[in-house]
């Protein structure tokens, strides 16, 4: 990716490049503030990018933003340098990519966690986190001995309430008399990275009877998992397989395959199959999933797995509809 300074000067010439052929295939990724090693969302994207680079040997231009202004600056610079496609990571880049995609109509853009934009050269990925959360809710309800389970969210935004709502639906559908305790860590972005408070919330939920705690709280969740492990209870991880955080104390993890979204974007562009539009990835599209492997085989027993598979099949078949909090900003439970 070593780009010589003079290249910036001739960036204009590169703008003429249209179709993503082998010669001018120059993918670019703009990570958000968390940075590409945030052990969470951005890192998931990075894993997909890395998989692509390892398999194809292609280089990918990368940038991590550090302030608001850099979002559109970075996307513009990538586009000026002939970045095609340019992948934006996270909903915070939505406004910026909307403008830049309009300024560079001959180049392809993609963004993850957005589904409300309308550009003919933009692919948008969103995930049905409520479906994956429903499944781990089923597992939590079946595994719980006390009949009380917990949820710890990060920052209180609609996206996280969507996790909570799907989870509650899964729990209640399995055990209608169960109690779901729900706490959000905070209302500032700091709530994504406050393991101490996460641990406190988890402990308080355990004090109130919870024996399974699901988190959707980024770095805060690491505190949740450790506290739950210390109390001898079980945690449910999120985004990626978090078994390793506290082996033996993680029942399963709700997977959000942002790595697949990143990988597919780059691969489709390389193969000339890039299509714009909204891609909503749920259980059916392997966009969300749960972890069931040899690590958690003892915890996630056969009957739980069977129930989760059954629920999964029903959701995929449309027999169960999991309510999406973001549809009407409310949860039926």
């Amino acid at each position, binding site marked *: 990716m070593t780009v010589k300074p003079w290249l910036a000067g001739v960036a204009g010439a590169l703008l003429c490049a249209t179709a993503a052929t082998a010669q001018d295939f120059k993918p670019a990724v703009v990570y958000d503030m968390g940075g590409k090693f945030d052990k969470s969302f951005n890192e998931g994207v990075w894993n997909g990018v890395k998989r692509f680079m390892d398999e194809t040997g292609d280089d990918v231009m990368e940038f*991590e933003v*550090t*302030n608001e*202004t850099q979002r559109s600056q970075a996307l513009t610079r990538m586009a000026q340098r002939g970045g095609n496609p340019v992948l934006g990571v996270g909903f915070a880049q939505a406004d910026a990519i909307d403008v830049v995609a309009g300024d560079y109509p001959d180049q392809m853009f993609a963004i993850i966690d957005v589904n409300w934009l309308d550009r003919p050269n933009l692919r948008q990925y969103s995930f049905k986190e409520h479906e994956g959360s429903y499944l781990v809710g089923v597992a939590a309800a079946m595994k719980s001995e006390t009949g009380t389970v917990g949820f710890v969210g990060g920052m209180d935004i609609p996206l996280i309430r969507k996790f909570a709502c799907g989870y509650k639906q899964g729990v209640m559908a399995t055990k209608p008399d169960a109690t779901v305790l729900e706490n959000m860590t905070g*209302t*500032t972005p700091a709530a994504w990275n406050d393991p101490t408070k996460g641990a406190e919330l988890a402990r308080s939920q355990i004090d109130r009877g919870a024996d399974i705690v699901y988190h959707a709280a980024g770095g805060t969740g690491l505190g949740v998992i450790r506290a739950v492990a210390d109390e001898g209870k079980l945690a449910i991880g999120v985004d990626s397989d978090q078994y390793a955080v506290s082996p033996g104390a993680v029942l399963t993890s709700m997977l959000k395959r942002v790595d697949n979204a990143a990988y597919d974007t780059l691969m489709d562009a390389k193969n000339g199959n890039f299509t714009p539009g909204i891609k909503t990835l749920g259980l059916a599209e392997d966009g969300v999933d749960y972890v069931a492997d040899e690590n958690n085989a003892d915890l996630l027993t056969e009957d739980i797995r069977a129930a989760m598979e059954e629920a999964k099949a029903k959701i995929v078949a449309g027999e169960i509809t999991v309510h999406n909090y973001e549809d009407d900003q409310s949860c039926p439970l």
Partner: protein
Amino acid sequence: MTTPLPRWADLLVIPLLNLLLAFLVAGLVVALIGENPWRALTVMLQGAFVYPGSLGYTLYYATNFIFTGLAVAVAFQARLFNIGGEGQAAIGGLGVALVCLALDPYLPVVLVIPLAILAAAIFGAGWAFLPGLLQATRGSHVVITTIMFNFIAAGLLVALLTGALMRPGQSTPQTRNLDALLPKVHEILRAVGIDAAPSPLNVSIVIALLACVGVWLLVWRTPFGFRVRTLGESEPAARYAGVAVPRTVIVVMCISGALAGLMAINEVIGAQGKLVLNYTAGYGFTGIAVALMGRSHPVGIVLASLLFGALYQGGTELSFEFDTIDREMVLVIQGLIILFSGALAFMLERPLARLLTPRARLAHG
């Protein structure tokens, strides 16, 4: 602080030497990670001044630093250490956004903008008023209170941006797009037929420079400024001379807060066109380094702001150009430059004085 150096050496040679030293050490770090320091320096300088639009970005960052630097400097004239620029700017932004949200559907842009600018200053001043009042009447140190007010401001903004002010239909904590925007410099240039690359630079920079003149006039050319400087030199002396210390402290803090609040216009109705979370991005804190380096004088602050603007923009280009230089590396390089030109600003004073003194004696002889 008295310096053993002649004025020209203190104002010119020392900062330049510090900068040189900082670049030397930063260059070593770049060499350590296996890149060519000379090329990195070239990229950084070209990225700050030469690439299309880069000068605009540099000046845009500099505008933020002029405002926050002036805010720190004004308070520092009274030996008050206002480190709440971050919160005052955030609340200033809230003022700007509220005025625009409420009025821009009804009033023409030319009326909304002055009101928004006024709101930035008033809200910023209001956020500094309470720490000033507590300092003046209760002796609660402004260093403590202003930094705590930063957290309150952040919390307040989050509550509003995830609640009442949040744009519906999306997940980012931000307001709707505002209509009353300050004209961008490249738009003005294009209107008069000069082709300019787009950048967030807008007419706030003119207001920033006017603020510099205003601060200079206020501090060095008015009785009030004299009282402020007297208070800064010695509080007992000021009291003895009949300066109303509590009132002066409060007013100085309000002026300082107003200047920090004005930073919001460069962001909210300048670069972003909406109120977003964390748009202050640490500029309030960088203002402390800017004021320190600029010796709390408007001219020095403009120069230091330019340097910091160039560092921010050049640093961005560095991580565009080099695989190995990621944003953490850029932070290290920026940190080194701040360390040498801020914290270690007086390190070279004595050696340089020793070097210069014999010549000075000769001149006298």
